[in-house]
C-alpha cells in the first residue's frame, strides 16, 4: 500500500486505520460528526493525532507513540486539502488564490498564473479571475477553492465535500472534471452523495462515530450494505438480525424471508436488504404470494422522483401518487408493508 494511515484522537473518539493503493481514489462516507473532516485533517497534517503512524510512499508523515515522535510539516507532505469551507485568501484575487499552490512550488509568477487560468477555466470561473473572495457568491467561492486545490497538483488530493453549494449545472461539470483529474491519482474524497462515490471512487470507507464500519469496492458496499448508514446511502431498506432457517429475524421479532447466494448458518448475525420500490403498501393484512408482511405506522410521505416515498420509521416504500391517493395515506396511519421474498437479499453481516 502506498499510503497507510493509523491514527487515534481520544478527545474526538476517533480511531481509524486506512490505506490507499497507488492511483486509488477512496470515498469517505458517513453521518455528520463521524470524523470525516478529522481524517482529512490528520492526513494533511493540520491535526496531530494522539497516537498513530502515517506513511506515503515510505515517507513517514507522522509516527506518534510512547517512544516515537516523528512529524512532517504539512507543506512537506505532498498533500493538498480542499477543506469543508472554501477559505480563500481574502487579500488575493481568485486568480492569485489558484496560483498560490504553483507559486509555492517555485513556479514563476507568469507560468503560475497561466496554470491558474487553466484551472479556473476548468471550473468555469475564468470571468471571476480578478474578483476578491469577498465579492464571490457561495458557489463561486467553492469552485475557485476546488480549482486552487487541483492547481496544487499534489501527490495525494484530499477533498472535503467538493460539490457543496454548487448549482445543478456546476455539480455534474465538476464531477466530470474530478473524474478526469482523479484518474490514476491518489485521492480521498468526503461526500454525502453516492453518485460521487460511484463516479469518482474505486473504494468507499464508511465512517461512523470515529470508526470505520464498512469498507470495500463501491459497488459491493452499496449493493450489499451491512450498515444502516450505507443502506440509507444506497437507497435500500436494511434490517439487521440473526439468521434463521427461513431468513432473518429482527430484534423486534419480525421474520424476513429472502434470497441468498451463500449458505447461511442459523444463529449468526445477518442482514436483509430490499429496495423501497419492492415494497407495497396495504391498509389491511392481505395474504398472497409475498411472504414478508408487517404492520407499521407511517411517519412521513414525500415526493421521490415520480413516486411517493412512504416512510415508516427506518423503512421506506415507493408507490405511485395515484396509489397513495387511493389509499388515503397520511402520517400516523397504520398500514402493512409487504415485500416479495424474491426482492429481499440476505447475507451475513
Amino acid at each position, binding site marked *: 500500500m502506498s499510503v497507510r494511515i493509523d491514527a487515534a484522537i481520544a478527545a474526538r473518539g476517533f480511531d481509524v486505520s486506512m490505506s490507499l493503493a497507488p492511483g486509488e481514489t477512496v470515498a469517505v462516507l458517513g453521518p455528520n460528526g463521524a470524523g470525516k473532516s478529522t481524517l482529512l485533517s490528520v492526513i494533511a*497534517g493540520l491535526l496531530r493525532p494522539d497516537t498513530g503512524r502515517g506513511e506515503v510512499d515510505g515517507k513517514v508523515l507522522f509516527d506518534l507513540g510512547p517512544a516515537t515522535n516523528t512529524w512532517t*510539516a504539512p*507543506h512537506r507532505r505532498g498533500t493538498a*486539502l480542499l477543506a469543508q*469551507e472554501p477559505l480563500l485568501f481574502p487579500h488575493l484575487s481568485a486568480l492569485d488564490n489558484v496560483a498560490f499552490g504553483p507559486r*509555492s512550488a517555485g513556479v514563476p509568477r507568469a507560468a503560475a498564473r497561466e496554470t491558474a487560468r487553466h484551472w479556473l477555466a476548468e471550473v468555469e470561473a475564468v470571468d471571476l479571475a480578478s474578483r476578491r473572495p469577498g465579492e464571490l457568491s457561495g458557489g463561486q467561492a467553492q469552485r475557485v477553492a476546488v480549482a486552487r486545490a487541483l492547481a496544487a497538483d499534489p501527490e495525494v488530493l484530499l477533498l472535503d465535500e467538493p460539490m457543496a453549494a454548487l448549482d445543478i449545472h456546476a455539480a455534474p461539470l465538476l464531477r466530470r472534471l474530478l473524474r478526469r483529474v482523479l484518474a490514476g491519482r491518489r485521492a480521498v474524497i468526503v461526500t454525502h452523495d453516492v453518485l460521487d462515490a460511484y463516479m469518482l471512487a474505486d473504494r468507499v470507507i464508511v465512517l461512523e462515530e470515529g470508526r470505520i464500519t464498512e469498507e470495500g469496492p463501491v459497488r459491493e458496499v452499496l449493493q450489499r450494505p451491512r450498515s444502516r448508514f450505507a443502506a440509507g446511502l444506497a437507497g435500500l431498506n436494511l434490517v439487521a438480525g440473526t439468521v434463521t432457517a427461513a431468513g432473518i429475524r429482527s430484534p423486534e421479532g419480525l421474520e424476513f424471508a429472502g434470497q441468498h447466494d451463500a449458505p447461511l448458518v442459523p444463529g449468526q448475525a445477518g442482514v436483509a436488504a430490499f429496495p423501497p420500490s419492492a415494497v407495497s403498501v396495504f391498509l389491511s393484512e392481505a395474504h398472497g404470494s409475498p411472504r414478508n408482511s408487517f404492520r407499521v405506522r407511517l411517519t412521513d410521505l414525500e415526493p421521490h422522483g415520480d413516486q411517493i416515498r412512504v416512510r415508516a420509521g427506518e423503512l421506506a416504500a415507493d408507490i405511485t401518487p395515484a396509489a397513495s391517493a387511493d389509499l388515503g395515506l397520511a402520517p400516523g396511519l397504520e398500514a402493512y408493508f409487504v415485500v416479495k421474498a424474491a426482492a429481499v437479499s440476505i447475507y451475513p453481516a
Partner: protein
Amino acid sequence: MRHGYQGVPRWIYVLAAAGALFVLLPLAAIVAKVNWAEFLPLVTSESSLTALGLSLRTSAASTVLCIVLGVPLALVLARGQFRGQRLLRSFVLLPLVLPPVVGGIALLYTFGRQGLLGRSLELAGIQVAFSTTAVVLAQTFVALPFLVVSLEGALRSAGSRYEAVAATLGARPTTVLRRVTLPLVLPGLASGAVLSFARSLGEFGATLTFAGSLQGVTRTLPLEIYLQRETDADAAVALSLLLVAVAVAVVGLSYRRPGAAGGRGPGGAERATRDGAPEPAPERAAP
C-alpha cells in the same frame, strides 16, 4: 450599494463624543494659547529645525528597528508554544511601565561604557551612549512594546486558518509568512508601526538620560521643547504644536482608506463597493 448594518447604539455616540472632547479640548486649549506672531520664527529657528530633523530620522530608524525585532516577537508570542511564553510577554511589556528615565538608566547600565555590553562594545571600538545611535536605541526600547502588543493582538484575532490552508498547498513557513500572514495582519502591523513611531517621536526621558542632549546629535524635538520650557513655557507649548502637526500628518497618511468610505453623493454606490472590498460584506463568506 452600501451595507445596511451599522449596529452602533445611539448612546455610544454620546460617550464617544465625551471621550473625543476629553482629548480635543486640551489640544484646543494649547492652540488657543499660542502666540502666533512668535510661533513662526520659533518653529523655523535653526535649533528647532535641527531637532525636528533629528527626531524624524531617529523615529523612522527606531520604527524600522521595532518592526525588525517586534514582528518576530509578536509572531513567536502569538503562534509559538513554548515554556515561559507568558513570562516573556510580561517582560516585553515592561518598558511601557518603567518610567522612561529609569529606562534610560537601564540602557546606560547595558550599553554605557561601564555597562554589561558596553565594555565589549568599547573594545570593538563602538561607543553607543551619547550618540545618535543611542537615541534610536532609547526610542526603540520604549516603542517596541507598542508594536508587539498590537501585532500580537491582530495575529491572534486573525487566527491561523489561512496559514494552515497555505501550508496544505505546499507553502513553506517563510512563504506562508510573506504571502499570507503578513498581508492579512497588515492593518494591525500598520497601526502598531504608527504607534511606535508616535511613541518614538514623543520620547524624552530615556533619550535625555541615555543619549544626552547635544544639538544635532541627540537633542530631539521633545528635548528641545524641554529646554525651551526652562526659559519660556509658552514657547515650549508652541513648539510642541510642531510635533503634533507632524504626528497628525504621519497618522493620517498611514491610516489611508481605513474602511469602506461612506460616499453619499451620486456615484457613491460604485465607490463604496470598490472601497468595501477589503472588508467583506456582512453576508459574505471570507472573514
